[in-house]
Structure formats: structure tokens, C-alpha cells
């Protein structure tokens, strides 16, 4: 059935009752309308009726601020939400004005509402973003609860536009008095006064704010911003260690770090010296400025090695069979950790440092901007290669504890959604 979210959102926003005849005449250019025998109008009326019945009985969960569907990390979070919160009486809807989307990649229980964009640049992307804003408005008005799954874009570390884009759906939800739950995120720092105020309004009016690190918790508390609990990210949910490992070394390069540092040359040199078989595992597959995939392909042509390309869950399963994993992306490290695979993290970001510190694995973290990077990296790779069995064994109790805590967090959210369903 043809839907007109653009116009209906405007009409609903100003509380103008929708007229199916008007909409049909305006947009379907239907000639039969004057005779009163229009199949589109009949279909529209029946859709309105069925929608009303469904809306009253089912709980609608709106997932927002999911930026890139080709990012395995975001897909793991979405899968955790769908497998834990997805029930027969619930609809999980995904809507985000600025997302890069392919509906085919989404789990079956998730319905995407909006236009699909395959890249984050170009005039089509911006036109789609504006149109998606009206889709989002409509979905916010219809939903019962809003779940924010954004990563670390609420802070203005990467730029003010990210904070604005992230806060927009939250502010709209507050305007319509909808409950907002912020799932675990990294929220620091705020360099500008404006972004700080914006985040304060967006977070203080939320029902619950969960952060991933103690550092974020203390920072928000010091700013007088609401924060409820420190919890590990939802991407930890569902990772399983099957047993049995190959002799492969998995490696993930991040496009962000590649632009800023030349550490990858040293990484490849060391691995060549060690004469180990390597597999490149990209974690962001699309959108050229962010894609690890194109980077990994380039490296595989330049040096030897295969590229493993699959969906988020398959990639995690593959990582679980590796001897060790060298990761740059936050969620690639989580994929390895959640399957008890020994990890060497190459990153200087706050979130990766905090994650490794929380797990007591600071010694398996290398700063790519270290003056003596090659030496430190080689030393740590050799150490991890010698102790990978012990490391994997030591990780198991820690990971099972983390997965339990993530389940508790999702249970809390589930209970909240049940309570909200009773208050409808």
C-alpha cells in the first residue's frame, strides 16, 4: 500500500485530520475519485482501521540512532535487542534520519521505516535524510518507547554535527513525551557549551541513561547530567566459544586510524617477520570514507592474506576459531572478547582503553601513536602467541560474568517496556 509519510507527518504534527480523499487526489492523481469509487481510497480506509486495531494492542519499540547497517558492531547490538526484547506482541521499528541502510541486512523481526541510503555523502543522502526526518516524526508519535543505540556520537569529539544529529531524535521524542532509554554508550567529552547544553536536555529527560565506562559516568555526574548505571555494551550478548582453534591470526584495520597514523606498515612488517598466516577481517563494510573492507582488500593485494567477508554473526563465529585477533575497531575487539579469543588491541581511543582496563587486559593494548610502536607491538604479539591458551582460559569466567550483566541490563529494559505497556 502506498504511504505518504511526508504529508501525514506534517498534518499529524499540526493536528490536522488526514483526509484520504485529499491525499489520494493530491498524490495518486486518481481520476476515479470524483465518482467515489476509488480502490486506493477503499484500501486506505481499511489500512487506517487495521492500523488502529494493531496500534492499541501491540507495543511499538522504536530503535534510533543506528548509523551504519554495514557496521558489524551496530548489527550485533541490534541482534541483541531483537533476540532479547523481540516478542510476539511487540513491533521493533528502526528509524534514523541519517542512517546508511540496506533493509535486506536487517533481522526479520525489525522493520525499517525510511528511505535507504547506501553512502553518507552526495545530494541524495541529504535529501533522504530530510525525508527520513518526517518518517521518524511519524514513528515517534506512534511508538511506546524509544531505544537509543548510538555508539559515541553524542559527544562532540568528532564534530558538532554528530551531537546535533544524535540528539535530534531524542529531543523529538521528549517533545512528544515518549520514554527514551539510552543503551550503553560512551558519552564524553563535550568541547562546546552548545553541545553540552543539548546533551543535557536530551539526557536529563530520558528515562534511563546507561554508559559503558566509569569515566563517562563520572564525567556526566560532574556536569550535572543524568546517568543511571555503568554497563558493558549490548554487543557482548550472544557470543559463544565453540572450542577448537585454527592457526590463523585475524587482523582488523580501521579506516579512521589508517588516515591518522602509519602504524599499519609496522604491523604488517612484524606479521611478515613472524611468518604467520593472516586473515583480514573488516568490521565496517560500506560507505567509502569509513569502510575497512576496501582497506583490507588493498592490504591483501599488497601483502599476502585473505579477506573474510560475511555478516556480523558469522564474522564473530569466524573470529572464535582464530588463534589470536589483532583489532582496531571497538566492536571487533568485543567480537573477539565475547568468544574468549585472545586479543591485542591497537587503539588510542578512550573507549578501547577503558574496555581493556575493565577486563584487566591493559598489557594487551598498544598505542598506534607510540614512538617505538614496532618494538612494543612485536613484543606483545610474541607474548600473546606464547600464552594464547592460558589467556583464552582466563577470559572465560570474565566473559560469562559480562554476558550475565548484559542480560540483566536487557531484562531491566524488558521489564520497563512491560510496565509501559500496562500504562498505555
Amino acid at each position, binding site marked *: 500500500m502506498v504511504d505518504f509519510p511526508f504529508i501525514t507527518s506534517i498534518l499529524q504534527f499540526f493536528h490536522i485530520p488526514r483526509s484520504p480523499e485529499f491525499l489520494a487526489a493530491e498524490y495518486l492523481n486518481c481520476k476515479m475519485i470524483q465518482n467515489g469509487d476509488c480502490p486506493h481510497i477503499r484500501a486506505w480506509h481499511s489500512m487506517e482501521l487495521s492500523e488502529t486495531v494493531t496500534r492499541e494492542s501491540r507495543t511499538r519499540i522504536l530503535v534510533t540512532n543506528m548509523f551504519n547497517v554495514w557496521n558489524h558492531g551496530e548489527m550485533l547490538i541490534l541482534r541483541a535487542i531483537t533476540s532479547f526484547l523481540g516478542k510476539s506482541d511487540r513491533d521493533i521499528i528502526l528509524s534514523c534520519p541519517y542512517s546508511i541502510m540496506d533493509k535486506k541486512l536487517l533481522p526479520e523481526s525489525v522493520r525499517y521505516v525510511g528511505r535507504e541510503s547506501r553512502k553518507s555523502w552526495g545530494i541524495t543522502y541529504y535529501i533522504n535524510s530530510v525525508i527520513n526526518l518526517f518518517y521518524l516524526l511519524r514513528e515517534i508519535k506512534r511508538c511506546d518507547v524509544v531505544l537509543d543505540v548510538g555508539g559515541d556520537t553524542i559527544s562532540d569529539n568528532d564534530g558538532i554535527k554528530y551531537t546535533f544529529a544524535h540528539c535530534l531524535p531524542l529531543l523529538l521524542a521528549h*517533545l512528544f*513525551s515518549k520514554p527514551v532509554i539510552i543503551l550503553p554508550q560512551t558519552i564524553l567529552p563535550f568541547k562546546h557549551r552548545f553541545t553540552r547544553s543539548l546533551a543535557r536536555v536530551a539526557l536529563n529527560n530520558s528515562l534511563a541513561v546507561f554508559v559503558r565506562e566509569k569515566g563517562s559516568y563520572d564525567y556526566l555526574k560532574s556536569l*550535572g547530567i*543524568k546517568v*543511571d548505571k555503568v554497563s558493558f555494551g549490548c554487543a557482548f550478548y550472544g557470543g559463544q566459544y565453540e572450542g577448537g582453534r585454527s592457526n590463523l591470526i585475524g587482523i582488523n584495520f580501521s579506516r579512521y586510524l589508517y588516515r591518522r597514523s602509519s602504524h599499519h606498515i609496522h604491523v604488517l612488517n612484524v606479521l611478515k617477520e613472524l611468518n604467520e598466516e593472516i586473515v583480514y577481517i573488516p568490521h565496517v563494510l560500506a560507505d567509502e570514507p569509513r569502510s575497512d573492507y576496501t582497506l583490507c582488500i588493498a592490504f591483501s593485494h599488497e601483502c599476502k592474506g585473505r579477506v573474510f567477508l560475511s555478516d556480523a554473526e558469522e564474522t564473530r563465529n569466524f573470529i572464535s576459531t582464530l588463534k589470536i585477533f589483532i583489532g582496531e575497531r571497538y566492536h571487533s575487539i568485543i567480537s573477539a572478547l565475547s568468544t574468549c579469543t585472545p586479543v591485542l588491541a591497537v587503539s588510542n581511543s578512550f573507549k578501547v582503553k577503558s574496555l581493556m582496563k575493565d577486563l584487566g587486559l591493559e598489557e594487551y593494548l598498544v598505542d598506534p601513536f607510540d614512538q617505538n610502536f614496532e618494538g612494543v607491538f612485536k613484543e606483545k604479539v610474541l607474548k600473546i602467541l606464547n600464552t594464547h591458551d592460558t589467556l583464552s582460559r582466563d577470559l572465560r569466567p570474565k566473559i560469562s560474568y559480562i554476558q550475565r550483566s548484559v542480560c540483566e541490563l536487557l531484562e*531491566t529494559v524488558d521489564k520497563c517496556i512491560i510496565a509501559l505497556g500496562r500504562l498505555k
Partner: protein
Amino acid sequence: MYYRVRSSKIELWNESSSGGAVRTIIKALLRKDVVGQAVMTSSRGFGAETVVINKPTDPIPATCYAYNSSLIQTFLSLPKDVRKVVVALPCQAKAMRNIDSSTLIISPVCFQTIEEEGIANALYKCGFPIHNFKVESIYRIHDKLLVNTFNESTELSFNRFWNQLKFYHFSNPQCRECRDHLGMSADIVVFDDKHRSNIVLVRTIRGIDGLANAIDDLKIKSDRFQKLKLAVNYKVLRRYVATLLGKILHR
């Protein structure tokens, strides 16, 4: 997120100051054993005192908006293993949240704190002979103010009494305890909608759970227009506009 609610029990609603939401929630939570004790403030003379309620059958006083200095002390003296619900002003809620993070806190919206002399003067100006009687308690029941003395109770007009108190702001503008003046540390904030029901602002998951437990005894008024209006904080908007106008005129 906001709800407009009132008690669905008519006898409770008749005795309430606006919608009877606080009493209904406390009663329901005690009845369902979600909490073991309720700590709240009741009117005493021109001031306030702390009341601890252990059973749902115990009489629950109407919400008192006066500052009660003994509330936190009483709260600390109670056994820690019993789950509690506390009705406290936003500043007290902040202190309690730091002490005990698991307590359900219901907060009435903060007004400017008035000294006992101010309340006595306002009553005198409303025509109540304060020198002839010893005032036991003062309660609001909808548009009436009930002044209880030793052996009788007198009804006054609440609106007249309110005008005598001369509130120009709905909260104390100098107070910086909570940034939005709406009980940031509380789980549920309750205020009067001036239509004999309450506006309930739910701030946490614990608050949602508490309200959902009492939903059988509450009537929710669903009004999407009202929701949209409520979500915009008019007080803040007014203040910004006034500041802007002041700056322009001053230039």
C-alpha cells in the same frame, strides 16, 4: 514523560488536594508488598512532621509541600533492609538518593519555602483568627483550605490563601539543587494540573515500575494535545523571552 492521572476511587479523590495520585501510588505499593514502609511529610501546626506508614490500611495524610527538616533523620533511623517509598521535596530527594539508591522517591513539585510566620499571616489575612485557636494542621482539598484546630475544622478559600502567599514563580529561582526545578533526583514528580487531577512526570525506570503497580487504582487521562504542551517547559521559555526582551529594551 508525562501522564495526567487521578485516583479512580472517588472517596480518596474527594479527600485529595488535586488528583490523589501520591496517596494512591503509596497505598498500591504497600498493598502489593512492593515496598514495606512509606515515609512522608504531614502538616503539623504551621509547619510539618514526618509520618511512617507500615500498612496499606493506615491513614495516609495528604501531601504536604512544607519543608520538613526531620524527614532525612527519620529515614536514616529506619531499618535498611526494608524497601521504602519516600515523599520528599527535590532537595531532600537529592540527599536521599546519595544515601540510598534503591529507594523509590516521589517528589511534589518544589515551591518557594515559606516560613511559619508567613503562613500564619496569610491565614490571618484570609480572615482566620489565628490568635484565638491553636492550629493543628492545614490541608488543601481541591479548592478549599481546611484548617484543623483542637476541636473543629474551618474551611477557607484556597485561591485566596494562595494569593496571600504571593508566589511569583512556581519554584524558587535561586535554588540550584536541581537544574530543571522538577526534582531531578526523584523517580516520580507530581504536581497539580489545576483541573482536579495530577500531572505525573516519570523520570526513571523505577518510577515507571512504581506507577505501573498503581495503575489499577489510577485513571490516566490520555490527551495527546496536552502531552505536547506539557513537554515544552513554558517557564523556561518565558524566562528566556523575558531576558531577551529585557536586553533589547535596555539597549
